[in-house]
């Protein structure tokens, strides 16, 4: 199981982190990877801090335990930065992506992480512009694929359209796709973002 990418999602109940964890896994599965996605099975209440996990690997995944040393941490709600140790167990050269209007270097300082890159994107504002609702999960996926290069943006767009074209109205679908693309463009890093 070499090259297994482990992602930990931090959010509050209702922000769509579990859906995002699942969607990312499904997109990776569609491009031939093995995947896992699962929430932390604690009490699930609207607004309470929750965690979810995604594993993506090019070989079969056989482990059935929580992610302890994530390569990538995604924080959908910046108020969690004061409540939860989001950097806990972060793998060497790991990535933390936070939904905030703040500058990545400020967030890095606030988290006190030494190694690892911090990316930020204002996903809530993007969601308000494109969807009219503060649901940050879809833009965070756009920012995540830019920050990590885990999956191609086109694959995400295609898979999103295929998965939700029946569930969402054309306007809502279009808004989500725009949110993904905008976050992909707008995500910033505490070091200059290498061109991928």
């Amino acid at each position, binding site marked *: *199981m070499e090259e297994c990418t482990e992602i930990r999602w931090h959010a509050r109940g209702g922000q769509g982190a579990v859906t995002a964890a*699942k969607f990312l*896994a*499904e997109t990776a*599965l569609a491009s031939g990877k*093995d*995947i*896992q*996605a*699962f*929430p932390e*099975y604690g009490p699930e209440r609207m607004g309470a801090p929750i965690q979810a996990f995604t594993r993506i690997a090019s070989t079969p*995944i*056989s*482990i*059935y*335990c*929580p992610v*302890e040393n994530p390569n990538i941490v995604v924080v959908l709600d910046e108020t969690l930065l004061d409540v939860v140790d989001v950097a806990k167990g972060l793998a060497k050269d790991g990535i933390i992506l936070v939904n905030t209007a703040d500058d990545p270097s400020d967030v890095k300082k606030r988290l006190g992480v030494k190694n690892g890159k911090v990316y930020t994107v204002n996903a809530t504002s993007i969601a308000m512009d494109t969807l009219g609702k503060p649901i940050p999960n879809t833009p965070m996926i756009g920012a995540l694929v830019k920050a990590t290069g885990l999956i191609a943006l086109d694959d995400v767009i295609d898979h999103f359209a295929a998965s939700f074209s029946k569930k969402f109205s054309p306007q809502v679908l279009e808004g989500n796709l725009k949110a993904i693309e905008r976050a992909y463009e707008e995500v910033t890093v505490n070091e200059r973002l290498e061109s991928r």
Partner: protein
Amino acid sequence: MKDMSKKRIVATTGASTVAEAMRQINPDVVVAYPITPQTAIMENFSQFVANGIVNAEYVTVESEHSSMSACIGSSAAGARVMTATSSQGLALMHEMLYIASGMRLPIVMPNVNRALSAPINIHCDHSDSMGARDAGWIQIYSENAQEAYDNTLQAIRIAEDKRVMLPVMVNLDGFIISHGIEKVEFLEDEKVKNFVGEREPLLPLLDVNNPVTYGPFDGLGGFFMEHKKNQADAMERSREVILEVADEFAKISGRKYGFFEEYMLDDAEVAIVTLNSSAGTTKYVVDELRAKGLPVGLLKLRAFRPFPAKELAEALKHLKAVAVLDRAISPGFTGPLFGEIKSALFDLEKRPRLINFIYGLGGRDYTLHEASKAFETLMDVAKTGKAKKTMDYLGLKEVEVLA
């Protein structure tokens, strides 16, 4: 909606793979009563009912005692019957479990393993199914969602085989497997339909031209003991049926099953024996330790009843030390599986040293760290020939807990 007649690779939960197996089996009767974490299976299945894509008689009842009773009645009538449960639900069914097996009814029931209260806990352990060990049900265990799907399909054939005619419980780990999303391959509807076939009931209660009685009084002057021997003999015959059905299933799926899976076991010196999802996590650690040159292996038990004692002894006899992992405990004894593995090895002239680890009670994590620790202890036992403790716990918090 995707074309469900085709082979599909999907990202889905263990609970929905079991529901999908049930959709493809399309039983005559499905009886439902909710209990976490099983509920997700019946939620999924009830959508198939509501959408009219299955024609099962879907019976909702007021308790698990009633759900098993309804299964018993409909199975005796000649129907192909399924239900699913967990934990307290299985415990509440307990007396009906014996009636289902004693009446030789081929009911198939996925059990999503969950701890028993008290204290209240909704998470995974195997106390529920271990408590039903002697109820006369065939018990099969599944590492992951794929195996839960595959085992559910095979269970129908095993249960209804005329040599067997016994109920089958398919176990999968609560939440870890039932609610985790992973990659699963579903077979074509048509292939499954041909594989499971139709139930040909033996002496159905509704055959009014050939009236029969099920489960009447059978006292001192009767044949109670002979019935019990017949039941035990049927369980013995299920051994060959389990293997035959597995062979046939391999032909349509490419996936091979037996009484157990051996992982890097042939040339191992020490090994872990375990059930369900912990086997997957252990495999990863086996690979890691093998890369460092350590002779470690794994045996994942699939058939717990009937218990493949002879085959287990053969597979484990060359080892220096074996750790049996139990996700349940029999207070005053050890873990239940440990006792059984120990008895399976008793007749060997030269036996491996055996130790027992209790792990994962009430959903306590079994991580790579716990698996590594178990192997570390095993290597030490193999080296010294001695075990400091026969039974120990993995992942226990080092705190004083009020008794």
